[in-house]
Structures are given as C-alpha cells and as structure tokens.
C-alpha cells in the first residue's frame, strides 16, 4: 500500500488550519486590539511592561508545567512550591541563627537564590520519584506534595509573612530587590528571567537529545524505552526542572513584592496548566511547544489585566478566563482528533 495523501493538505494553503495552528497568537492579537479600543491606557509600552511582569510569574511556572505535561504528567504542586520557595528565601534573608556558634549567618543573595532553587529541585525530585519509581499517578503524587509544601511553608513562618527582604548593606546581602523589582534597560528583570528561561527551554526541547527523549517518552513511553530512551530518568528530570521553575518564580514574586508569604502562589498551578493548554499542548503528552505556552501565558495575563484596566469586576474576570480555557481545550480536541486509522 502506498502512503496516503493526508499530508498533502498541510502543504497547501489552508486558512482554517492556519487559524487553528496559530490560535493562541490570533487570540493574543484580538485581546490587544479589543482592549486598546476599550481603554486609552492599554496600548502603551509602559503598560505592556507592567503586564509582562505579571505574566512572568505564570510564564515561568508554565515552562516547567509544559515539560511535565509533554511527558504525559501533571504537576499540581508548583503553586505551593512557589510559596515555599519565597518563604525559604525570606528565611535565609532574615539571617540563619546558628545557636552552637552563637552567630547569625546572612548568606549573600546569590547563595539565597541557589539554595532556594535547590529546595525547589528537591520538591520536584520527590514528585518525580513518586511518579517514576513508585508508580503513583502524577495527579495524586503532586496533589499530596502540593499540600505538604504548603504546610511546610506555613510551619516555617507560623503563618506570618517575611517583610523587608531588601537586605542591609552592612550585612552584605543587598540586592534581593534586583530579581523582580528592578529593571534593566527599562525591562523588568522578571520579564528578562522569563525570556531567558523560555529560550533555554526552547533550545532544550528542539535541539537536544533530552528534548527528543521527552517528546518520545511523552508520546509513547513503551516505544521510547525500547528505543533506548532512559524513560524514568527523563520523567524524574522534568519534575525537578518544574520544581526549579517554581522556585525561580517564587524568588521573582517575593522580590517584586519585597515580602514572602506562605500562602503566595495559591492556585497558580491551575493558571500555569491553563497557559500550557491554551498554548496547544496535549494533556496526554508528546505535543506542545514553548512558543505556544508563552503565547498561552500572555493570553491569560493580558486578558485578565485588560479586564482590570477597563474596570470589569474580578468575578467576571474569572468567568472569562474559564471560558478561554474551555475554548482552548475544545480547539485542541479538534486539532488532535484521531485520524482515520490507516488500514494495513
């Protein structure tokens, strides 16, 4: 039997396919156009940068979430990990008292950042180990870790918030603000962090062996394993990377706010999932791109900020966000509907 000509349609110009392919992009354009017409304040560089710095938090979480979803998993713990990471950073910035030596250690900001990321990686590792080695369904494993991480954050702070993360010059730990609060060439650092992470993750997905392994094991783990892909290692790694992304998002958020509360990031995991889904990734794994996920994050961010700017109540914002997610999933199922089986 010869090859079926199903691919022929793709090569020709097909406006519907193009709309479907680029739906997140067109949605973003539509959002920008509509809100620019509705409000004179929307279409300005300053506003875009402010909105982008809001998007940064969700976007960074969504990058990690995309990796996990490409693997066919889900990570519900990222919101809690974000909160926990903020608290760890806050805890370290306040100084670590070592009773035996009778001194208080003030680690420099770079050490705070590294330690926080290590903590995030550890949380991710727990997720990955539960899923890959102990065969706990990803939904349940990360749901459990979500509660544990949130609980640990509350225990660490006794439910209170770390304020004044600015550090003191005499203690040598100035500079925490720099991460989220400051700007570089007018662009908020958080946005630059997002862009850097997105480029790195994009390169990893498209140009490295690991990226190929990830797509393969998400598409068909059994086939990948028989082709020599270290399926379990890939699985654990994506959760670790997701944990690190959550920790970075936690650092950026607490720097933006110059405070770290234990309840920060509650339900952010759902926003991250939404961004990934709007970006066209399949929850069954194996399909999705960084570009799509970034568009998805910006669609959600620009939509909700736009609604705030034109003064729509936050209740309506929730309704709109939900509708956009459902619409996105609907379009996903149209795009990925099973093709007619090729009869052998």
């Amino acid at each position, binding site marked *: 039997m010869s090859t079926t000509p199903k691919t022929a349609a793709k090569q020709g110009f097909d406006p519907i396919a193009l709309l479907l392919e680029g739906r997140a992009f067109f949605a973003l354009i539509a959002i920008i156009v509509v809100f620019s017409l509705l409000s004179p304040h929307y279409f300005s560089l300053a506003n875009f940068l402010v909105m982008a710095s809001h998007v940064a938090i969700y976007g960074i979480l969504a990058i990690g979430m995309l990796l996990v979803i490409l693997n066919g998993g889900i990570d519900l713990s990222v919101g809690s990990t974000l909160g926990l990471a903020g608290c760890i950073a806050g805890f370290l910035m306040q100084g670590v008292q070592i009773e035996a030596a009778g001194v208080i250690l003030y680690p420099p900001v770079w050490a705070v950042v590294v330690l926080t990321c290590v903590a995030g990686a550890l949380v991710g590792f727990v997720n990955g180990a539960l899923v890959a080695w102990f065969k706990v369904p990803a939904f349940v494993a990360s749901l459990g870790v979500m509660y544990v991480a949130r609980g640990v954050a509350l225990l660490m702070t006794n439910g209170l918030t770390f304020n004044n993360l600015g550090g003191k010059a005499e203690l040598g730990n100035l500079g925490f603000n720099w991460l989220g609060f400051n700007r570089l060439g007018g662009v908020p650092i958080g946005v630059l962090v997002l862009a850097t992470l997105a480029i790195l993750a994009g390169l990893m997905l498209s140009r490295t062996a690991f990226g190929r392994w990830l797509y393969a094991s998400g598409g*068909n783990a059994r086939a990948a394993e028989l*082709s020599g892909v270290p399926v379990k290692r890939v699985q654990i790694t994506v959760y670790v990377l997701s944990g690190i992304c959550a920790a970075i998002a936690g650092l950026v958020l607490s720097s933006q706010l110059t405070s770290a509360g234990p309840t920060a990031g509650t339900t952010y995991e759902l926003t991250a999932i939404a961004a990934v889904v709007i970006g066209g990734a399949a929850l069954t*794994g194996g399909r999705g791109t960084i570009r799509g996920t970034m568009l998805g994050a910006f669609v959600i961010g620009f939509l909700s900020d736009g609604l705030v700017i034109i003064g729509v109540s936050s209740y309506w914002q929730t309704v709109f966000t939900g509708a956009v997610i459902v619409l996105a999933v609907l379009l996903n199922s149209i795009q990925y509907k099973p093709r007619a089986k090729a009869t052998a």
Partner: protein
Amino acid sequence: MTAAPVLSARNIAKSYGNIHALKGVNFDIHQGQVTTLFGENGAGKSTLMKILSGVVQPTSGEIVLDGAPVTFANSTDARNRGISIIHQELSLALNMNVRDNIFMGREIMTRSGVDFAEEERQTRALMAELEEDIDPLTPVEELRLGQQQIVEIARALSVNSRILIMDEPTSALSATEVEVLFKVIRDLTARGVSIVYISHHLEEALQITNHAVVLRDGAMTAYAERGAIDLEWIVRNMVGENFDLGSPPGGYTMGPTALSIENLSVPDAAGVGFSVVDRLSLSVRAGEIVCIYGLMGAGRTELLECVAGRLAPSGGRVLLQGQDVSGLTIAQRIAKGLVLVPEDRQRDGLVQTMTVGQNLSLASIGAFTKGLFTSRRAEAAVVADAIRTVTVKTDASGAAPIGSLSGGNQQKVVIGKMLATKPSVIVLDEPSRGIDIGAKAEVFRLLAEGAKQGLAVVYSTSEVGECLSIAHRIIVMHRGRISAEFDHTVAKEKIMAASGEAVSH
C-alpha cells in the same frame, strides 16, 4: 446441506479514502452452519465483520437478511435483528460479575430497581444451556479466559442472536478450552444459530467449519464447502499461487557466535510460579537467520523481550559476542549492538505524535548529537539513509506524520529505526504481523541482506509459511522450551507437529 441463506453479502465494498479495504465481496451464511473467513492480516476480514455487525457502513453493495435488503444504522441495530459479534478482545467489565455483564446496558427493571433475582435466574438458565458450570455471581476477572469467552457467548445468546460472529475466538485459549468452545459451537448450530468464524489457526477452523470463504487484498478469492477443500487449498487461495517469501541467503561464510542464550528462564508476568520461558538455550552466529516458531503463549515474546532487556530473567544469561549483557539496561544493550523490533508496533514500536523522521532517528540520537545539541544536518543524513535502506514510501525528509503511513511502511520504520543504530544482533517479534504480503517480502529481503553483511537475525512467527523462507534454522517453541530444531528443508507438517498445533481428530 444448502438451504436459502439467512444472511448474504452482495458486492460489499468499503473504501477509506483511496484505500480499498474491500472490493466487492459476495457470500452467504446458512442457517445452523459455520462459515469461516480465511485470509491473511490486512485481507479485509475485520472490515467485513464490522460491516456485517453494523459497526461500519459499506461504501457500496448490500446486505440481505432473510431475503430482504437491510442497512444497519449501528451495532445495536444489527444486534436487535439478531446479529451479534464477539470481538477478539473480549468486551467484558472484569470487575463485575457474570450476571451484571450479561445484562449490562439492558438491565431488567422493576418499579423498585433492577430485578437481580430474575437476571440471575436467566443467567443460570443460559449457563445450563451452554452446559457450563459458572456461577452468575462470580466476578469475571476470576474466570479463565475460555470461561470469559463463554460469558460473551451467553451475552450474545441472551439477546436471541441468530447469527454469531466470532473474531479469533481461540487465539488465547488452551487446547481443552478450544474443545469446550467447539462443543458449544456445535450445540449452537444444532439449535439453528449460524456462526461466522474467523481464525488464523487453519487446521482448527477446518475442524469446525461447513463453508470456507477466502479473502485476499480485500477481494474474495474462493468460496467452497468443507467437503471440497483441504488445508493446502486454503493456503493457496490465501497467499496466491506464485508467492515466494525468499530463501535463506547463501554464498558467504557465517561468522562466530554473536548471540548466545544460556539456560534462560523468564517468570510468568502474573507471578504464579511457573516460567513462561524455561531454561532455554540458543546460540546464533553472525550472518545467520534463525526463525522461532510457536503458538501464542509458547513464550516467544517473553524470550525476545528478555533478550532485549525489557523483562528480567529469573535465571540464565544472555551473551553478546561472548560478553554477558544480562545486567544491562535496554539502552546499554542497544549501544552494544543488540536490538529488538517489538511485536506490537503501535504500542511498542512507534511514537505516534512524532514524524517519520523523528521515529527513525529516535534510537540513534547519540550519533547526531555533538556536544549539547543535536545536529540537524547529521540527523537528516541518518533519516535519509534509513528511509533508503528500508525503502519506506515517504519523502526523503521524513517530515510526514507517522500515522500517514500504511502498516507495512510503519513496520519498516520500526525496523529502520533499530537498523540505524548499526546493530550486530537484531531480534524481531512477529515482524510480519498485520502487514500485507508485498511488504512482508520486502521485510524479509531486508533481513536477508542484513545477514549477508554479518548481522545475526532472530525472528519469531506464528505462520509456518514464514519459517520456510529466509531462515537458515527453525526453532520450534512449545511451553517455554525448544521442542524441535530443523534446517530450512523441513516439511511444514513437522514444524506444526512440534509446536503442539496438530490436534488429534
């Protein structure tokens, strides 16, 4: 023996796009008789069954039921007219009991809810009718496969089916269970139920059938009554007159032992104690082609998966060029030159979300990764080379989605993927499953060429004809052990006898 047919297919054709799965098939089903459909994988048997049972609609042609043309809107419609199908994969809810399975979806209701007592009574009556001692309250998962099949039959009978279509009903049954099933079939036909039977076990089907319909490439090639035919007639009509799957490659000297299996045992997946592969030893030389023949459940798949590293052995060793690889992972074995082409290419062979090229290069990513990044140019070279080697019908860039290929070309992609790793030993589990005869010949030609260049090839099959093609040596497996070993001049009957396939009459 001939009366008016209960059901007739008149010029049934079915096309999917420009693939013609069926091209005008005609045959009759007679009351109280067994009609068997013979044909290789991909000949169109399942499509025909789906049409007769209302699952799909024919593109043209008509179905005549009791002398009047009918169209079935869906399978429920067909069932209401007395036509039921029992699929190869049983459609029972394993967690529920026999009674609930039989009445699933059409529970007997009273005002106060489901009338379990009545359902149970009817189930008992059905089981008595089938002379099977199965308690209606037993969970189906506790039944043996043969008994589960009986439950499926009981469910079909409970809706007063007059025509029962059975798709490979014996493929997973033990010999005694097959006997029981055949007895049930004889009882059913005696009561006037017509059976349409599909099986790959030709001898088995010949025992039970009254009529034979042979399909090849979507067309009916022969139709005859049991009295007029024999095994050879079926095989001839199934594969065509002048069909040649090749012969063992020669004209070169084989190298030293490449793969050596020593006393290998593989435990049963369910962990019930006995071994599915039992202290098996086998060695294969470089350039040699070995065929492993055996029935389903003989332990072929387990043996090959254990050699490749997917299953852990409970004893014994696997040596590659004299080096023990037993403790290595799949990836390490691939790196050392030992690769597996799995049996189920959809489940284990292909990543459906990726392109043809990405599938082809999946196992040899290391070869085109320089430093941190993969090299696009090196990958394109690997892909183009693989497409050329295994002659996949697709464009050379491999950008087409894998799902757009036919079964035979998909299989070539799986083989090409493993050949791209430059192996010294390739084991293939049923490489000819579900591909058409032309692709089959191409796959075998590919293997023969590999062997000429020093590749050690081991492939398994459940079709005797495929043993007697390119293999230098034929190993017959039965219950986890080697029951016989032949060279390629052996007669088919001897191979079948050694596999335990020859059923006494």
